[in-house]
């Protein structure tokens, strides 16, 4: 792990295209600003842990119930043709 020290408003640039800025330091809380292309995923570490937890909860050996999704109509209703 690369360890750097930065002051408020200073930045780190990753891969020449991702910029991390120290926006504010408030006691124990550091506000970080990240500029990256939209297709670069940037997530708090917790999201991986949350998904792990969700996966663990989802694993099952009981297959008796599944949700029921509302049926989508396959064909638009044909309006009744009035008698001539």
């Amino acid at each position, binding site marked *: 792990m690369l360890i750097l020290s930065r002051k408020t408003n200073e930045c780190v640039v990753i891969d020449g295209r991702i910029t991390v800025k120290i926006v504010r330091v408030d006691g124990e809380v550091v506000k970080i600003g990240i500029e990256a292309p939209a297709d670069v995923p940037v997530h708090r570490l917790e999201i991986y842990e949350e*998904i792990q937890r*969700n*996966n663990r909860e989802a694993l*099952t050996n009981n297959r008796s119930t599944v949700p*029921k*999704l509302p049926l989508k109509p396959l064909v638009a209703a044909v309006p009744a043709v009035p008698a001539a």
Partner: protein
Amino acid sequence: MIAAESPTLATMEVGRENIVHLPLGLLGFESIKDYVLLTEPGQEPFRWLQVLNDPSLAFLVVPPFDVMPEYSPLISPEDTRILGLVRPSDALLYNIVTLRGSRATVNLKGPIVVNRYTLRGKQVVISNAAGYSLHHPLPAAEEA
């Protein structure tokens, strides 16, 4: 009953059983890499991602567009490269459903993305995960 068929586009669309290989497993289940994707009659569009070596264990999954037609997950360039996806239509998505009694939710932040030709997949964290729920509610469960 149906033997694993060689992976082709037709197989993934009409086959009722397919073996899927996840080289990285699922988050929290990294050592389990081989699954059978199967459908129980009457449970469409839901499918079971069943552990190949322990058929008693499975995840309930659903193609997300059946739940949310406007779902627009952004798959990162790195995940696209890892999966060998060339066109968006190369990807099949299955999102994990959690059953809690009669309430069910689906994880829209971390779909399982499968290359329909290689049948290799990965659970990805979509780049726009912040805009979707980990516990998106589904209609109440019914006895199958």
